[in-house]
């Protein structure tokens, strides 16, 4: 039943995603674009969290460094999108090569060190105002324009993001099913055994970290063209934690999970902040609730529900 439903479900979801901008209007189109972008960021966090078992709290860094690089090139130096976007991706990935040394550590140490790394980037964005524009950041980023692909509206950009995110999801699926993906789950299950089987576990984790940073950087590029500006908030700690929270709420170790989580969080924030000033508190409570009651996330809940229904049906 599960496999039979999967293809029609995916097609239905795709149809809804394609038709939504027509039906839902500009506000929802914009929010959905954000949801995809942050879902991609959450997915990048989840490559480490849900597969390798590493909890990174510095992914806002890659996200922000690529966003800043693209924005600065495009706005101040009039570099075309065809160069500015890849340059952003490259910059974030290079930072991943540096921060990747965090995989020398595990567990709490890894968490704490990535937090510290994340603050370096935030600090630089915040204080090096002659280059980053300080708290105002870089503004007036144009829509992307790559030869034949020329985006002129938020709706068009929505489709571009949808296409990129779908491609990423497909690539991600291959990645986690590949020997490399299996290796990461092996390291999470027993690193000592992996070493005795001939794996240089640290090198695999490092590679995973860099791939994950590249994915976060891609999200950063997509973000800056949507947002049209970037400021130190993009590099801030809450972005990193929220990305992790999205993955956890949606369900770690899955592909749809991080996107579902991103939709829930962004929708919740949007809705709550429309009538309640203390929405940061509400987000805090969501963290607490997620840890206490839904450590398996929505995907896990659905799975359990289905198992229970199947059990009731047969028994």
């Amino acid at each position: 039943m599960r496999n039979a439903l999967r293809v029609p479900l995916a097609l239905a979801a795709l149809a809804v995603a394609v038709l939504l901008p027509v039906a839902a209007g500009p506000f929802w189109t914009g929010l959905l674009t954000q949801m995809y972008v942050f879902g991609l960021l959450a997915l990048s966090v989840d490559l480490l969290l849900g597969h390798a078992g590493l909890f990174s709290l510095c992914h806002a860094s890659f996200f922000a460094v690529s966003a800043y690089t693209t924005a600065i090139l495009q706005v101040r130096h009039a570099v075309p999108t065809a160069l500015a976007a890849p340059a952003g991706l490259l910059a974030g990935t290079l930072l991943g090569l540096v921060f990747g040394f965090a995989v020398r550590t595990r567990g709490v140490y890894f968490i704490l060190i990535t937090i510290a790394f994340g603050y370096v980037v935030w600090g630089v964005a915040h204080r090096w105002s002659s280059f980053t524009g300080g708290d105002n950041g870089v503004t007036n980023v144009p829509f992307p324009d790559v030869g034949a692909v020329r985006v002129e509206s938020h709706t068009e950009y929505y489709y571009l993001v949808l296409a990129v995110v779908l491609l990423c999801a497909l690539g991600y699926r291959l990645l986690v099913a590949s020997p490399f993906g299996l290796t990461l789950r092996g390291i999470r299950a027993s690193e000592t055994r992996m070493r005795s089987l001939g794996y240089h576990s640290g090198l695999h984790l490092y590679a995973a970290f860099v791939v994950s940073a590249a994915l976060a950087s891609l999200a950063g590029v997509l973000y800056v063209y949507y947002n049209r500006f970037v400021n130190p908030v993009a590099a801030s700690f809450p972005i990193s934690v929220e990305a992790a929270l999205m993955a956890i709420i949606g369900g770690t170790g899955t592909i749809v999970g991080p996107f579902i989580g991103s939709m829930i969080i962004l929708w919740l924030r949007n809705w709550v902040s429309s009538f309640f000033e203390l929405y940061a508190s509400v987000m805090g409570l969501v963290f607490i609730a997620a840890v206490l009651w839904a450590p398996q996330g929505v995907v896990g809940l659905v799975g359990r529900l289905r198992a229970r229904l199947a059990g009731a049906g047969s028994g």
Partner: protein
Amino acid sequence: MTSSAILQAINGTSLAALLFLLASGFTLTFGLMRVVNMAHGAYYLLGGYIGLTIAERTGSFALAIVGGGAAVVALGYLIDRFLIRHTGENHLAQVLLTVGVAFVIGDVSLAIWGGDSLKVPTPVFLRGAMELPGGLVYPRYRFVLILFGVCVGAALWLLYRKTQIGAVVRAGVDDREQVSATGINVDRLFVLVSALASFLAGMAGVVGGAFLTLYPGADWEILVVALVVVIVGGLGSLGGAMLGALIVGLLDAYGRWLLPEFSYFVLFGPMAVLLLVRPRGIFGRES
């Protein structure tokens, strides 16, 4: 130039004193209970704000310190008892949960005390500058802070090294099974150590709020620097927290002075290098 360098050294040392207050609690709760409490920065900020209100109402700085610390002890107990305890030894869950707690505390504080930078008023005899040997002039408050930090550090050290409770805590840091074997009430010990950590954090907020000021976001800024202290020194080690605080305090002061735009690099760069050599910090144990 040399006199500036000396002033920066004193600046760094006074910051180290403050960082030690915060980091020692963090490191002890981790060492003994294996709890990572990311709300420590929020405890700092909340303690500072409450102390500020007390100081404004009563005019007593001493009362502000005790009140700010005590309020955080009460809150910290509830958070430990009703939230953190449910996470077991899952660090990921602890981090997420306590980050959530910190968001709530920070947000509620913002609603109560507003978004401006506030300064805890200090008593008259701590205001102004004092003259140091060699003709240097330095703010009296920060100088006293160094003495205060040394006193607290010495007290903690005595408690840790010379008392029976300290001995049990040390044994617990090495091997938790041992504590249960001594027949001591482990729960009560945990509550005690966690209360001490909360008190130190709340007190640090009042003391720090008098010269660094209190504002939304100060909770995370100070926490991250305290984390670097703990990482450099080695999680769970009191001596590590002392040495780490001194290193980080000095690096921060010189970094801000020499490379203001990249002071974060000056702070975190050496940490990264150290970790390549010793992933568990200077006094950290290999497990």
